[in-house]
């Protein structure tokens, strides 16, 4: 971040040259930022105050979109609830499961790289394939799981067709794709200095204490990174619910991004969609700020320069 105690002073010509050279190299990004980020950001804020259906020029509405969203739109509450539910569960659970698997892989085992590859692989599979594969596995009529249950005389489980089960099923599928988090955790675990463990063992610490007082604290920076990225990603979650459940059953999986997409591209209410997008942005910023502020208490940066 900017150094706060440097007063603006005249720069030498050498420094100017450096600034110009540096700017030259990063100019593609700067230009891209202006074109594809800054300008759309401002535009969407503007559109959020208008009614715009792409066919006629936008008409100014003031705060009407926002008011409608908060007072006149039952789907908004549902979408927000579904998304918060999903994010609130999938981020911690995803992190926990990948951390646990990484811990398991961090021990003395044969074939660590094979296991690692198997656990990582679902993370890079096309979303459409993930959707198809799981739809085909979880289906009530022809899914392997339910057929097996039926053949044993048990009741079937309507994973994706039951409103109560739909979100947990999606969260489960999400956990299946957390291989990249697992790989990061594994690498982090392997970098924890052995000397710490040895010292602790000599002091009489048992396995659980070593985990709680050494392993986990040393991993907290990566845990924070993972949580932040998971939260940000979770709020934008679109492809899987769109392909698997289309927001059903009974709006159980009508996540914010689906709701937004529909408003924009199906109903052609670009103004409202923009308003929804900015609300989402605000929510994400608030969550991220809270997460970072709280991180001062539980994240330990001792291992870094």
């Amino acid at each position: 971040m900017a150094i706060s105690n440097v007063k603006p002073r005249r720069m030498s010509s050498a420094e100017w040259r450096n600034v110009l050279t540096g700017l030259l190299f990063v100019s593609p990004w700067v230009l891209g930022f202006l074109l594809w980020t800054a300008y759309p950001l401002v535009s969407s804020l503007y559109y959020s105050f208008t009614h715009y259906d792409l066919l006629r020029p936008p008409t100014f509405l003031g705060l009407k979109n926002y008011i409608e969203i908060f007072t006149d739109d039952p789907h908004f509450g549902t979408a927000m609830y579904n998304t918060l539910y999903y994010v609130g569960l999938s981020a911690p659970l995803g992190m926990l499961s990948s951390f646990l698997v990484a811990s398991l892989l961090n021990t003395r085992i044969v074939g660590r790289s094979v296991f690692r590859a198997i656990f990582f692989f679902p993370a890079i599979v096309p979303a459409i394939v993930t959707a198809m594969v799981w739809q085909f596995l979880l289906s009530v009529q022809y899914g392997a799981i339910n057929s097996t249950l039926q053949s044993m005389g048990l009741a079937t489980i309507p994973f994706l067709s039951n409103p109560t089960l739909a979100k947990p099923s999606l969260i489960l599928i999400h956990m299946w794709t957390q291989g990249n988090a697992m790989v990061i955790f594994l690498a982090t675990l392997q970098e924890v200095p052995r000397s710490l463990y040895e010292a602790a063992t000599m002091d009489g610490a048992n396995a659980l204490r070593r985990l709680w007082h050494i392993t986990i604290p040393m991993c907290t920076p990566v845990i924070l990174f993972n949580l932040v990225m998971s939260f940000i990603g979770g709020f934008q979650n679109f492809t899987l619910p769109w392909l698997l459940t289309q927001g059903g059953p009974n709006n159980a999986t009508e996540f914010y991004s689906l709701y937004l997409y529909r408003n924009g591209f199906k109903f052609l209410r670009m103004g409202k969609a923009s308003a929804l997008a900015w609300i989402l942005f605000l929510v994400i910023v608030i969550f991220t700020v809270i997460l970072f502020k709280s991180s001062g208490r539980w994240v330990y940066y001792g291992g870094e320069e």
Partner: protein
Amino acid sequence: MTVSAPSHVAVGQVPGGAEQAPRSSAWGWVVTTLKYVVLITLAASFLLPFYWMASSALKDDSQIYTVPPVWIPIPAHWENYWNAWQTYDFNLYITNTLFKYALPVTLATVVSCSIVAYGFARIRWRGRDLLFSLCMATMMIPFQVTMVPLFITFKKLGWINTYLPLVVPYSFGDAYFIFMLRQFFKQIPRELSDAARMDGANEFDIMVRIIIPLAKPALTVVALFQFMWAWNDYLGPLIYLNRQDLYTIALGVENLRRTIGTRGLDYLAYPYLMAVSTVITLPIVIIFFFAQRTFIEGISLTGLKG
């Protein structure tokens, strides 16, 4: 996963892959066995969906809706793979995805992100870190906020139903890959650049002749990730490509899935769908198989503090 897994981790052993002799007690044996049971069960369940997909492709309709499920289809209809591919336009979709999307965008990303990362990593200039923080902050912006205006802009430019909206923005760099490459560039010893500067080389020369060749592993990772991301991308093509002859494989498969039952192609619909899905996953499998090391190291490059 049971909560007791962590204590299995550390009993008698030192995490960090250290080679300490396991306690040769009965307890040690139980723990080790349990550990492998958990791992193998997990691994099997991770692979199960893929196996189910690939083997279902070999079935005929009579084996799809059965109770109990058919795990090993006999007879195995290997011709399903070929027929499914021929029945739909997947050769076109693959060509579209490969030559209009994945390859161009990968090239654009690698080139642009290298240049930008060099500027952020190897030159010291006033305001650099502030600008870089801004770059990082953009990762927090949900795509929905820019999605609508970008669509409108591209519509006005007449770029709908082309691949331009998908490729062009990446010619300007991407925050995630810029971050990744910057991490890597920073680790190259400063003396190399300084020596070249003293010899009169300009920054561009230094970048091209010294830094880039040294950064080949990181560049490979960026290329691999971007390629795969484009191969897998669904939402981008969904928004900008409305004509079927422009579809990528993601759209093609989804289109097929949605029209099952309505095309009068009920027969063998699901096996064909599974066959096609398996085939489009294959390139990823192959790339992954050969580049596994690179992938996993690349992930570590981004996730760790540095």
